[in-house]
């Protein structure tokens, strides 16, 4: 097996895997934040990303905003969309079980796909402009500037989020809400505001992921479905509650997924991915990243 591996190819795949993993991590961060604040496993996350990316596409197509302006507006729209989804749907489902919330999130996903499909029926499969063109040659490989940008944006977002949760009042309130919503509420934490803010940040992160990765392919109403599933896997590494674990999980998944192509195991990569996830769940690796109390509280209130 080792003899059959091409080291140069592995390095190239490693670079690309880091970039791809950054997208999984961005989505994973949003999924974790939303789950922590509201106990919702948000299966509409990919659709929220898709919808915001259509906004970006429309702005690029119809306005002179340019890449930066369109990206900022679409992230803001993504944040507003996240807050709106919480306030209109999930705030009213606080007493509902996890399964009901999962089904509701799937319904939101379908709704967003339907709306986007209707509104942009003239662009059912659209090409979205890259934020930055060109690529850079590295020893043993190359990487496009778009991919490099994705890596740095993800790292910046991840560090900023972790800092926000650890050092700000909002972070303390969010952690308190996640660990014991009732107690937090009794202490004056406005849990709905915390949750709405978290959904807004999650929606913004989803938009950012879409704007960064969709230009590498094509924009359709289901463009982000596969990414979202992998975002969930990244989030699951930390039991859906740990931001650092989501970052690590996302990057690891991206690297593993890509590097395996350069090995003789490529043909069974999907089987290995499934086995890997099952092992993660069985070993409960989230215990290494998150407080048992927080995991349990969310499982019980979720």
């Amino acid at each position, binding site marked *: 097996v080792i003899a059959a591996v091409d080291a140069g190819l592995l390095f190239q795949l490693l670079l690309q895997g880091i970039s*791809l993993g950054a997208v999984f991590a961005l989505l994973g961060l949003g999924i974790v934040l939303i789950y922590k604040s509201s106990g919702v496993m948000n299966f509409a996350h990919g659709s929220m990303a898709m919808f915001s990316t259509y906004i970006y596409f429309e702005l690029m197509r119809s306005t002179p905003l340019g890449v930066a302006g369109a990206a900022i507006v679409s992230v803001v729209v993504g944040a507003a969309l996240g807050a709106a989804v919480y306030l209109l749907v999930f705030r009213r489902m606080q007493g509902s079980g996890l399964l009901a919330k999962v089904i509701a999130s799937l319904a939101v996903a379908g709704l967003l*796909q339907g709306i986007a499909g209707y509104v942009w029926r003239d662009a059912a499969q659209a090409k979205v402009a890259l934020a930055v063109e060109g690529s850079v040659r590295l020893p043993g490989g190359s990487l496009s500037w778009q991919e490099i940008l994705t890596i740095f944006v993800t790292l910046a977002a991840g560090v900023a989020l972790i800092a926000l949760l650890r050092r700000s009042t909002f972070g303390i309130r969010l952690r308190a809400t996640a660990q014991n919503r009732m107690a937090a509420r009794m202490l004056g934490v406005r849990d709905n505001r915390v949750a709405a803010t978290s959904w807004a940040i999650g929606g913004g992160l989803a938009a950012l992921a879409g704007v960064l990765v969709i230009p590498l392919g094509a924009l*359709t109403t*289901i463009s982000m*479905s596969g990414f*979202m599933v992998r975002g*969930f896997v990244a989030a699951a590494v930390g039991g859906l509650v740990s931001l650092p674990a989501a970052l690590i999980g996302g990057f690891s998944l991206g690297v593993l997924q890509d590097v395996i192509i350069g090995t003789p195991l490529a*043909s069974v990569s999907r089987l290995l991915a499934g086995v890997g996830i099952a092992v993660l769940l069985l070993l409960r690796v989230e215990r290494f990243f998150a407080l048992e109390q927080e995991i349990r509280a969310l499982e019980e209130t979720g």
Partner: protein
Amino acid sequence: MTGSRGLHRLIAALAIAAALGSCALFQPERLAVRTQVSETMPGVAVTQAPGVAPTPTSGARVVFQPGSAGRAGSKANYASDDGVTAGEIRIGTVQPFDGPAAALGRPLYNTTQAYVNWINSRGGINGRRVRLFLQTACINCEKENRIAVKALVEEKKVFAIVNTYMNTYAFGAALKYLNDKKVPLIQGWSGVGADRAVWGAGQTAWNVYYTMRNEVAVHVYAAWLDKVMRSWMSAGRIPQGDFSAGTVSLDVPQDNRRAAEFEKAWKRYGTDHRVTRKERVAAEEESVTRMDSVVSAIQRSGAQAVFSASNITMVFGMQAASRQSWHVPWVAKSAWGRAATDNCGAACNGGYTDNNGWGWPGVNTPQMRQYKDVMARYYPDSTDDAQTLGGWIGMMAFEYGAGGLGADLKRGPLMDILTNLQSFDTGIGAVIDTRDTARLGERDAAADHLGMGQFMMLQICDNRFWRVTDWMGRGSKPRMLSNSGSRCGWGYP
């Protein structure tokens, strides 16, 4: 408490597992099946008397020009079969109208409807006006497609189904239903193409469509790629004598088989023609999430060219190759559609694909002029591509067969005509020959009713398709047209 936690963990695990499983099974357009079939445009009153139709003959080329259909005779029209009355023929079509696949379904439907309108403006077929009924269905959804054709046959009593987007597996159940009911399925257009390894002869008795079979097409792809690579070698753009190629396919049986057939055809050119890497991409979204890595793997294998077994893998593959500044020749199966030009941009400049045998709008024949006139009248915002020209050829065949039967329009005799065409020239696409023994000498090819032995190679350049060859079939000598107009020449500009 412990039980509750366990339950929640189980639900979470099941939800993630279900979501992962949906990667493979995801059917984005699975919306509610519309059981109500709608007639989408009114028919036009009969205004002309029928003409005289040519009938298939043995040996001689039959040149068919729409408008000449109709068998003269004293017999009055009557209700000769289900869906046929003295004054009307009911036909149906099934199309995806939601999600990305709508870009395939809508042009094909609009073209079919335009042709129907045109028939009716000419007085119908033998004095019978044609009514087209539309049923929408998700392109990948087997049950929806079956329900769709069932609704057309049992509720709307259609005589035949025309011009579906026949994705091999998703349409399998519908095809079985149509065969059981002995309802013809007639189409110029099909998404992926059925072949005998997928369906047996018994399953396709009532199905006919006109395109080129995969195992023949791969020989043309191989010949063309060889030609392109030699040109690149002459220009010093790839190493002399290195005919290493990679293949990439969507991980579905028909694509994988096409890639394997290409490899066999490629190796027939000699030991220096090698396939150094065979990559499969699992699903549509993986063609984005993994394509950079797939292309890297092909590049690192030493490949100097790529054969893509589907349009999707070429569009995303060439973009990934462009990002990696890896410029080599690409040849892909059937990428002639706006998906390639709209989504790929300059990254696809120099890529080659084929026209499925469905002609080229630049061909100057009376039939092509008819096509353009009618499309300008009934479907003015159309783009000439695989959907429109393929759908047009399907309707030409239907008009020819139905017209030839005159008052006695019946399903069985119609299929007899359509599956026994010999040297049938539509003036639009390649000559059609659906008799089993006449298909390029392949006497065992009895399982399907394909019928074209030739196609043209097209080049993508500057977001447009350019015709770069004449008709090519197995054994043809590949030659690039000197007046193709493309500035990409043999490769990238």
